[in-house]
């Protein structure tokens, strides 16, 4: 591996307070270094260009049974976006459910180098890891689903936080997972009887616990354990007009949790756009973004990602089974459901966000409103909840909407006027800077998930760098088309110290690491005894065949927690 110097670019490294200063970045042995005396050094000329740490996507469905069921469901989606093999790259398909190799290539071409898969059902964890092994060029981690797990409900009901903590660590290790994901707490379990929950204080059938108890207990356990990421929460009532109230109520319920030392947040609320709806029905839905933003602005314990909607045909997929059934009935589109024993569920429905549709145009505005009205970019992140709001390949488009009011206006003129009347987007003059884009796409996301070697360019950080061919000194918001072009195909992407993309073309395809939490609670013996009994009675596989073997992770990167 050659050492590399990225020369003369405008560096945006927000975690180290570097805001567009001209400079060089040195890489040696895959890491960023302060100086390099090696003569055999490859020069990457970034003169007049933007240099950022490699992108870190905090929430994107890239691997596992859900996205794969989406791929299987949608031959018509693949047909419009086929990818030929080359001497270096594999063939595949793209668009809303890209095949694994294409996922890796396209992220790298946009300058992203780390992606976190946000919904891993424990019993099919091997599937997630098998697919992640076939996604090159990216470092990865997967969040394990906890919110409707039999053992979670059991320990929450018993009020036994120590057993819950032991269970979290045991399950993360068994599934090679990285964080605690919660999807519609209680609602997914109720969906197994064809029901849902409609708020924080409804009861989970047969368990007599509430969503409120589930999220607060998991958040408390999560912070006491000191996991690198907070709980990753898909709130109740997703997609239900008026749900902003539930969202704020949920945030409020987590206010009093004591965060792990060194961070202030106790919850990350995912794809918040879908949970920021005001109004009573889809007919009179309006934006609840201002109310959510106001809450987030005045409460340090919350971070969100936006879940931006793109006007295109896509494939929605979530662990929120009841919502997917509802969406299938709303749209009339084909519906896949999967109930996963004792743990989770999922649903998949193709969906087209239409410019002429009033509700869709409002959803589009809500995502941007959240990004613009939350003033602290360290707590609001760019996502499309790929592929739910739209494919990740539209991130450059989202960046232009954030950085250019002219670009937003152009879209607003094309779409249903409900967007003007029932949201405040037209009145928002804020435009993101390059520095703020660097925050919401890499620095803040890396920080939020606790990947300390990612998202910045100080010596010791991983050699993950992206260079975009746009000059921040000459750029103005009216030139948003140039911006979109520059962010669509990175001039250079460097992954782990290797130049992998040049002029938007893939040069090589090294594999990425998989991060997971490898810690054991002191009371694990007691926990395992308890788990084994229920396992024998209720699971359809044997306890010994459950944990994912480490051989499933070609580049395994276990993390030991300090606090345990």
């Amino acid at each position, binding site marked *: 591996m050659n050492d590399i110097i990225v020369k003369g670019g405008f560096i945006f490294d927000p975690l180290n307070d570097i805001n567009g200063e001209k400079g060089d970045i040195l890489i040696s042995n895959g890491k960023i270094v302060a100086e390099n005396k090696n003569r055999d050094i490859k020069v990457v000329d970034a003169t007049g260009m933007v240099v950022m740490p490699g992108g870190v996507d905090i929430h994107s469905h890239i*691997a596992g*049974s859900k996205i*794969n069921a989406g*791929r*299987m*469901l*949608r*031959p018509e989606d*693949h047909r419009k976006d*086929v*990818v*030929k*093999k080359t001497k270096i790259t*594999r*063939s*595949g*398909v793209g668009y809303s*459910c890209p*095949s*694994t*190799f294409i996922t890796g290539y396209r992220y790298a071409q946009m300058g992203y180098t780390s992606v976190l898969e946000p919904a891993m059902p424990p*019993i*099919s*964890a*091997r*599937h997630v890891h*098998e*697919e992640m092994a*076939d996604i090159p060029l990216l470092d990865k981690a997967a969040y394990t689903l906890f919110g409707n797990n*039999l053992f979670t409900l059991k320990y929450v009901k018993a009020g036994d936080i120590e057993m819950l903590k032991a269970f979290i660590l045991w399950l993360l290790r068994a599934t090679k997972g990285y964080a605690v994901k919660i999807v519609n707490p209680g609602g997914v379990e109720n*969906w*197994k*009887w*064809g029901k849902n929950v409609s708020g924080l204080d409804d009861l989970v059938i*047969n368990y007599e616990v509430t969503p409120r108890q589930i999220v607060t207990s998991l958040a408390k356990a999560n912070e006491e354990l000191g996991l690198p990421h907070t709980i990753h929460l898909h709130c109740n009532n997703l997609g239900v007009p008026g749900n902003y109230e539930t969202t704020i109520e949920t945030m409020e319920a987590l206010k009093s949790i004591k965060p792990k030392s060194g961070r202030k947040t106790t919850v990350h609320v995912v794809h918040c756009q879908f949970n920021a709806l005001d109004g009573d029905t889809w007919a009179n839905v309006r934006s609840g973004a201002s109310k959510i933003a106001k809450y987030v602005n005045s409460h340090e314990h919350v971070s969100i990602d936006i879940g931006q909607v793109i006007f295109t045909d896509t494939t929605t997929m979530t662990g929120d089974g009841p919502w997917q*059934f509802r969406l*299938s009935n709303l749209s009339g589109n*084909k*519906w*896949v*459901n*999967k*109930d*996963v*024993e*004792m743990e989770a569920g999922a649903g*998949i*429905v193709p969906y087209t966000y239409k410019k002429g549709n009033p509700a869709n145009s409002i959803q589009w505005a809500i995502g941007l409103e959240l990004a613009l009205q939350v003033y602290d970019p360290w707590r609001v992140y760019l996502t499309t909840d790929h592929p739910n709001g739209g494919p990740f390949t539209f991130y450059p488009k989202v960046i232009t909407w954030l950085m250019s009011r002219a670009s937003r206006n152009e879209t607003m003129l094309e779409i249903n006027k409900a967007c003007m009347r029932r949201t405040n987007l037209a009145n928002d003059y804020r435009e993101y800077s390059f520095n703020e884009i660097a925050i919401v796409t890499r620095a803040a996301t890396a920080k939020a998930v606790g990947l300390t070697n990612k998202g910045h360019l100080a010596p010791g950080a991983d050699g993950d760098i992206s260079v975009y061919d746009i000059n921040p000194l000459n750029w103005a918001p009216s030139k948003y088309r140039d911006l979109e072009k520059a962010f669509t195909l990175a001039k250079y992407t460097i992954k782990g110290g290797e130049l992998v993309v040049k002029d938007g073309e893939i040069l090589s395809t090294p594999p990425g690491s998989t991060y997971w939490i490898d810690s054991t609670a002191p009371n694990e013996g007691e926990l395992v005894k308890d788990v084994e009994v229920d396992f024998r*009675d*209720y*699971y*359809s*596989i*044997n306890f*010994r*065949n459950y944990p994912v*073997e480490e051989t*499933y992770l070609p580049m395994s990167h276990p993390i030991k927690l300090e606090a345990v």
Partner: protein
Amino acid sequence: MEIHTDVICPFCGCLCDDIEVTVDNNKIINVKNSCGISRSKFMNNEINRIYHPSIDGKTVSYEEAVKEAANILANSVRPLIYGLSKIDNEAIRKAVYLTELIGGVIDNTASICHGSSIIARQTVGSSASSLGEVKNRGDLIIFWGSNPMDSHPRHLARYSVIPKGKYIPNGRKDRYVIVVDVRETRTSKLANEFIMVKPDSDFEIIQCLRAAVRGEKIQSENIGGVPINVIEQLANRMKSAKYGCMFYGLGLNHGSTKHLNIEALYSLISDLNHYTKFVVNPMRGIFNVTGAGVVPTWLTGYPFGVDMSRGYPRYNPGEYTSIDLLARKEADAALIMGSDPGGTFPIGAAKRLAKIPTITLERKQTPTTMLSKVVIPVSTLGIESSGGVYRMDEVPLEMRKVVEPPKGVGTDAKVLEDIIAIVESLKRCN
């Protein structure tokens, strides 16, 4: 003597993972917990084995066989790679890569069994569950055109009928079991209710059932041999179940209306979810036929019948599926693994396999090995080698080996890797 526990059975889509195998001096001497078929598979692993590679029936070295295989594949115009249902996920990944490399077509046994189910799913979607949910919640179990007592012998005992579950405290007593079939079977004898239907009338019966579920009045007195009041009763029973589970078999895939049957069935189940919770699962046959669809889907977007001749994947069942390619005399070379098309394909397709250079990776003598030009022995997955597989409900499991394979015999993945290495160098030279 050693006892291996929690062994996963390499026979059917149930992937029972509680088998106990006793091994003495690298020989299996006893098997516990298994069904009769599984026991036979473990105990008779050595019968009829192929120990040496051959070309045109003559024993050759492994290197010669692999080289010949690579030459055939690299020089063919329209090579077909078929089978995949008894090989592990790693080998399937390699098979997809090899197909891409040689611009071939890759297809698996879904092509002749549950392919219709996949097409139906792509058309209307489906509501499914893992088998543990059936065990824990299923209070109404329907087997339609499937006879698991013969095809998946432990399905009823482990997942669907007998076991006690979290919300089924009394096991069998808490479940109502219905069998719908064209004749009495061993499964129908165990059911609470047996509904006999005329062959090839499933489509109209299911559509009537859909109407009955919606409360429509049906004019006919009898549909497909079933009195209308039986259909109405069935509809009511389905609507009043707490957690209904439908399992269907090849009976539905292979009527004259093929995937339309399954589309109707999937739509029925979706309709029922407006009234209660209902799921439907296909009874997948061979132990990793599910993986043979899952793995190519993440690599190419498509589950079977994938054509790579243009350098990117294309999918069109009926065009890029094996029997069609062979019957049209399009395929000019074939690589077969994890299946026996010589024994299962229609005669016209099998004849074509005998005519073109066919390479077969197999453990045992089969009709396919007899018509193949090149035969390379492989180890038995789940007995002699470990590897990842998918259960019929897409739950991934890691099989574990209990004995060493015969000397000089490698895994499917290893053989593919060696073929790929030569094909790669041949392609570079061209």
